């Protein structure tokens, strides 16, 4: 059971949210080369360590947010991000 700290709804069960994946920067589609674009689409670091990732709060506030999680231990570290209402800072 994984409790995901949603900045709006507080800790919620992972089954209430959708894991979007490791956060990646979207290149400008007008100027990106095919290689850049496909790297953005498919290639991931997939670290067994602290990773900044995106979740979507499907059954709560229905917002996307970023959070830092250790993919080896499943601990969350709340990063100081806009809209983080949990009051705790990493």
């Amino acid at each position: 059971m994984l409790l995901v700290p949603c900045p709006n709804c507080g800790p919620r069960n992972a089954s209430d949210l959708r894991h979007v994946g490791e956060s990646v920067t979207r290149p400008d589609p007008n100027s990106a080369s095919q290689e850049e674009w496909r790297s953005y689409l498919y290639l991931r670091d997939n670290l067994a360590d602290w990773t900044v990732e995106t979740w979507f709060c499907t059954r709560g506030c229905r917002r996307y947010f970023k959070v830092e999680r250790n993919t080896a231990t499943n601990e969350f570290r709340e990063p100081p991000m806009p809209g983080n209402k949990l009051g705790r800072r990493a």
Partner: protein
Amino acid sequence: MGWLDLGGAVRRRGQTRPPRYSAAALLSKGIRNAPWPRVWRDVPLKKQYDVVIIGGGVHGLATAYYLATNHGITDVAVLDKAYLGSGGSGRNTAIVRSNYLTPEGVTFYDRSLELYNGMTEDLNINVMFSERGHLTLAHSDSALRTMRWRAEVNKLQGIDSSVIDPDEIKRLVPSLDVSPDAHHPILGALHHPPGGIVRHDAVVWGYARGADHRGVELHQKTEVLDILVEGGSGPDGKGPGGRVTGVRTDRGDVSAPIVVNCTAGWASLIAGMAGVRLPITTQPLQAAVTEPVKVFLPAVVVSGSLHVYVSQTDRGELVFGAAVDPFTNYDIRGSLDFAEGLAGHILELMPGLSKMRLLRQWGGLCDMTPDYSPVMGFTPVEGFLCDVGWGTYGFKAGPVSGEQMAECIATGTTPKLIEAFTLDRFMTGNLVGEKGAAAVGH
């Protein structure tokens, strides 16, 4: 062998034939209380090999075995950070089948079934291959349509596969609830008679023993800490355009012109050491096993909509598997979440199991690719090859992957059977979409 000078690698070890496993040997040793020889040698790690394979599971060992058997390349080391078969090879649910969705997938997995069929003789070890039939249940019209599609693709490739109705399902597997008032009524199923189960540990030991007898070195408890690359475009000389020179392990550096990544769930981390990024995310898949009961389940039963598959081992235990966890992580502990969900789903299919007790549950790491097909062959780093992205279908593909990767290494070209699965398909956009046939829970 053209592209690589392996210095006359055909180095047959002048050793006597290893003792064969047979009923006569078992009886004779049993009567005399004679000891069995060690299955593989324990040898010191050398400083140099022709080929280093990272990962001592079915894929790594099969690659080593076929390198030695089919191509005479025996100066090979297989390195594993734990013991042989400690990863996905010992954690899967041992199901084999070839009823995939794309022609590329179907022919590929069918070659694997062919190898599994002859494996007991080839490796002289009883892998307990039980060809018992494989049923993929459809609970909705759209699922049934996909089944029909799969059946037609399969038939075109010469695979025994057809869609059957609930009466026929009930005849094959009487314990299934096929009544129309079930919560998720069973509308039909894809029946694949050549599918079945194999004893996965025996496959690992068989390949390990076969490879060892042909001169391959197996090094357990040898962790690869870094991959040595020079001339790459990255800041540290790694990455595209570079050339592999060896690996750094916790037992010292080993130089090798060819390094093969066969590490499943850890594939991205190993590839990262060479400066290669992969289209892979790691997600655990959980499985569970019940107490043994009298054999009642004659086939492998899979339900995509209910996220569950089940088979009964020859000892009578029911083995359950599920979909991968819905978020990436490297944690292989089982969760109550999973056990609860699994029990609910399996009881919908087979209400008669309500008194069964689970013995244990476990997790294994799956290296998922966006199109549910593997990543095999060459990478932008010369001499660094990958056999990864095996997601939830690695075990059934073990033998054919070993055979094809060995050919890839020995000839320096990508064999026809795995041309569709190269890493650069993600740059050209020629993905091989197998999600409909490779996964449960979509």
